[in-house]
Structure formats: structure tokens, C-alpha cells
């Protein structure tokens, strides 16, 4: 079966012309190749400037490769004829909800995408209601977005993406600006979308969020340095350090307990497993 996302040898260079007129270029993504089968939940980690967001913007044709190709369900993002199909297949949710909300009424904002696709009004109504219910914001549908909290606004932005009925949603640090409760709610929604069969690409700086994915892609200097299940990645202290990342709390605690001489198994990774392992030492 054709994977939903196929990226082949993708390179992207930002070009910059200095006031003196000399052009320089910076390679933000450097020869990246990977595929994502439909329905997968992929987390992308990497330091600021490692190329994660630039890569993400290629997945629905917001950027086009300098070299290489990106196919979404077999459609090449370079072909203008496909661009609307590609954009309705892959939705995007960014870090700052304020930059994504365009209307002064919540439900109008959610309707914006399908309206632009020329969807039938009755169908738009259905989609908007469903999308708002899916993110738990139906009650707030007539409110003004600026009266909502950051977490609520982010849920509206997600509802806007859902209303497009995408097969895949790319989340670019969706929880970075949210309070703990807002973060939890957004992660819950991401899990529910994944369970409903939507392919999820989650770019994040939170190790705990990355651990919840099926697969982890780590980027450094525009390249993919690791592509494996998060369990394998987080079992390897050297890999974590090499990528400039941090150990998730549970793993840091496990390591500290081992250092203090407790016989905790080094394969323990989740909270439940660690609690179980500690209880068995009683």
C-alpha cells in the first residue's frame, strides 16, 4: 500500500540576500528520506534549528523542496494540480494558536477551512459541530476566540484542522504555550485522533510526549539521526545526549535508582513499570 507520506532525499535551503547584495544559503533540511504508513503516530524530536519545522512545512506543500521529492498519498507536492488535495489530506496545527485563528466567532473559525474548499453548507455545519465536540469545545461555539484560554484556543485550532477531514495532522509543538491542564487536554485529543485512524506527526520538545508515540524520528543539523520506537531510543543514554535531548523523568529516576544501588531493571520505561519495579523491591 502507498504510504501516506513518502519523503525522498529532501533538501531545503533558505536563501538570504545581505544588504550588500551577496546571497548565502542555509541548508535547513539535508537529504532526508522516510515513509510514514497510514495510521502511524510519529514524534519528531530535535534541538531548535534542527530542521523539524522546515520538514513539517513540506508535508502539505507550504514549502517545496530545493532538492528531492515529497509525496502525499502518491501526490507529488510540486504539482500545482494536487496542492488542494494535499492540503485537505494533511492538516497542520502550529505552536501559537493566536496565529491560526482568523474569525471572531469560534464556530466561524472552524468552518473557515471547509468553506474555502467549497463544501456544502449543511455538510459544513455537520463537520463543525463534530469537530468542536471532538475537542470538547462545542459549548463555546458562539464565543469570541480572544475570550478563551490558550489551551481552549489551541483546541479550536485543532477543530479547524479536523473539520477539513484530513487523513493526517502535523502538530508543530502544539503544547509549548499551554498550562499543564491545557497540555493534557491537547495530548488526549491527539491520542483520540490517532485511535480514530488519523496519522499523527507530533513535533515536540517534551520527552514525555514523544514517549507516547509509536515511532520516534530524531533530527540534528537537518538530518535524521535516529528513527526507531521511542522505547529503544530512550533506553540508550548516549543517543539521548548525542541528540542534545534530555532523559524523560521516569528514565532519569530509574538511572538514579540504579546509581544508588537498587536492582531496578534497565528496561523499565513507563511510570507504571517503574512503580511496579519499586514495589517489588519491598
Amino acid at each position: 500500500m502507498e504510504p501516506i507520506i513518502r519523503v525522498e532525499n529532501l533538501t531545503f535551503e533558505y536563501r538570504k540576500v545581505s544588504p550588500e547584495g551577496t546571497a548565502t544559503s542555509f541548508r535547513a533540511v539535508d537529504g532526508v528520506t522516510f515513509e510514514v504508513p497510514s495510521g502511524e503516530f510519529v514524534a519528531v524530536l530535535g534541538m531548535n534549528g534542527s530542521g523539524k519545522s522546515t520538514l513539517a512545512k513540506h508535508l502539505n506543500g507550504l514549502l517545496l523542496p530545493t532538492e528531492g521529492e515529497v509525496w502525499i498519498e502518491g501526490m507529488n507536492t510540486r504539482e500545482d494540480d494536487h496542492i488542494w488535495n494535499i492540503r485537505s489530506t494533511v492538516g497542520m496545527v502550529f505552536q501559537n494558536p493566536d496565529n491560526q485563528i482568523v474569525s471572531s466567532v469560534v464556530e466561524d473559525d472552524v468552518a473557515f477551512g471547509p468553506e474555502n474548499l467549497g463544501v456544502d453548507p449543511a455538510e459544513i455545519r455537520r463537520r463543525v459541530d463534530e469537530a468542536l465536540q471532538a475537542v470538547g469545545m462545542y459549548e463555546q461555539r458562539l464565543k469570541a476566540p480572544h475570550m478563551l484560554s490558550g489551551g481552549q484556543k489551541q483546541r479550536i485550532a485543532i477543530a479547524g484542522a479536523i473539520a477539513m477531514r484530513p487523513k493526517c495532522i502535523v502538530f508543530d509543538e502544539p503544547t509549548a504555550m499551554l498550562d499543564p491542564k491545557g497540555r493534557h487536554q491537547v495530548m488526549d485529543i491527539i491520542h483520540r485522533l490517532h485511535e480514530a485512524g488519523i496519522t499523527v506527526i507530533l513535533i515536540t520538545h517534551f520527552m514525555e510526549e514523544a514517549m507516547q508515540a509509536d515511532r520516534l524520528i530524531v533530527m540534528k543539523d537537518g538530518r535524521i539521526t535516529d528513527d526507531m520506537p521511542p522505547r529503544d531510543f530512550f533506553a540508550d543514554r548516549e543517543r539521548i545526549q548525542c541528540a542534545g535531548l534530555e532523559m524523560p523523568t521516569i528514565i532519569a529516576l530509574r538511572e538514579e535508582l540504579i546509581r544508588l544501588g537498587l536492582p531496578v531493571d534497565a528496561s523499565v520505561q513507563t511510570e507504571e513499570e517503574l512503580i511496579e519495579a519499586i514495589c517489588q523491591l519491598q
Partner: protein
Amino acid sequence: MSITVENLTYTYSKGLPNETRALEDVSFQLEPGEFAAVIGHTGSGKSTLMQQLNGLLRPDSGKITVGEVCITDPSNKMTEVRRKVGLVFQYPEYQLFEETVAKDVAFGPKQVGMTGEELDRVVEESIRLTGLDYEEVKERSPFELSGGQKRRVAIAGVLAMKPEILILDEPTAGLDPSAHRDVLELIRRIHRKERMTILLVSHNMGDIAELADRVLVMNRGKLVMNGTPAEVFSRGEPLWEMGLGLPPATEFMERLKDRMPGIDAAQLSIEDAAKEICRYLKGRKK
């Protein structure tokens, strides 16, 4: 420099249908050199409080005294207040605008009349204080720098005003783990070296547990808790109800406590949590 806040009350859109009470009878005091953190869910009034402390908003009633000066007294000049109280906004790097890093950092002190060698010296000191290599960055465009570096330049711009009180609103949001570390280190260094009074607004309970001497908890415009990190974070239940959380180590210990009653869950760091687990297990063996 100390801060005393007495019975502060503030209402947005007063007299309009969407009138909202943002602050209600808030009182607290910070000693000179104290490091306090403010937590609260979005809309709890934290940002309104910060803006009051810097004189960007004036209260409906109540009083704020910074050092000896009552900043809520309209006869006092706000320019002086703003020099003393430096405010680092959320995502401060969006406010960078100059051609070079040195010019950007110099902008604030220049506005208050600093010139010549003194200005150069203050700019250099402030940039160094943030851990950036002065010689390397001074002539570069701030827009060429990485996210973490940009944020440090923006903080340097506030430090160059030589504030005695520094307020930081979510200074680590959106940074990768290593830039996050750098900014925390920088805050710690400023606090130690410059003996500034610091007020940190953050959603990151781990950062707060690591840095703050005191935690102020805001909920629906009211100050509902005021204590040491150990005191505040031992009250997981009410914090969760307010949409807040615990530092990661404390949260784990709370979960563990369900299975091991008697373990002391009030541990703020991974190291302390590990020690307490060892202590508890040894006690059980005897």
C-alpha cells in the same frame, strides 16, 4: 529591593457587559534578593499582576511599594519604576529589531540617556551575563541566531537597564532541552551574581522546584497559596483542581505513595525522590 503588594484589585472593561475581575485583594511581600515563582492557569491573573508591578497597568484599589517608592501613587514617575523593574515578556525574541545584537541591547539604556563608554560597558556586561560570547555575537544580526540565543539577547536588553527587580514571563517556553537548560542557568546566575529580586511566571513546575525560594499560586484573580516549593507542591489535590500540576519528581512520588503509603512524597528533584525511595525500602527490610 523589596516588593510589597497590598490589597490589589483590578477589573478589566469596568462598567461594560464583559467586565472581568482580574485581581481581587492580592497581598504579598518579597524580600530583597528573594526568588519567587508565580503559577496559575491561563486567565488566573498572573500576567495582569506582572503588568501592575511594572506600572503598565494601574490598580482600581490597593498599593504596590517597590523599595521605598509607592509605584501606585500617580505622582511618582513611571519611567523610574520601569527602570527598577525589568519585565521580560513571553517570547521576548519577537521584540528584537535592531541590525546588530549590540545595538539591540543598547536600545533601552540609550532611551534613558546613557551614552559613550558607559553604554558600551553596560551592553558588553549584559551580553556576557547571559552567557553569550560578546565578541562573537555583538556585530551579528539578532535574526541569524538560534532560538535560545535570540532569547538571551532579548533578556540582555532588559538587564542592560540595570533593573533591581526582574520579572520573567515564561522564559523557557518553546525552547529545546539544551536551550532550556541555558536559560535556567542564566536566570540562576543573574540571581546569584546581581542579587536581583526575581519573579518568575511559569507553567514548568520542574523549573520552579529547581529555582524558586517561594511559590505564589494565583486562581481566579486571588492569591490562594504562598509558601516554599515544598509546602505548595505537597498540596497536589488543590493544584490539580486549579488545572495546575506538580514537578515531575513530586508527581511520580504521589503516584508511588498510592502503593507505598508512608513514603514521603514531598520530593522536588529526581535525586531527592531516589534517596527517599531508597530510605523507605531500607526501612521496610529491617
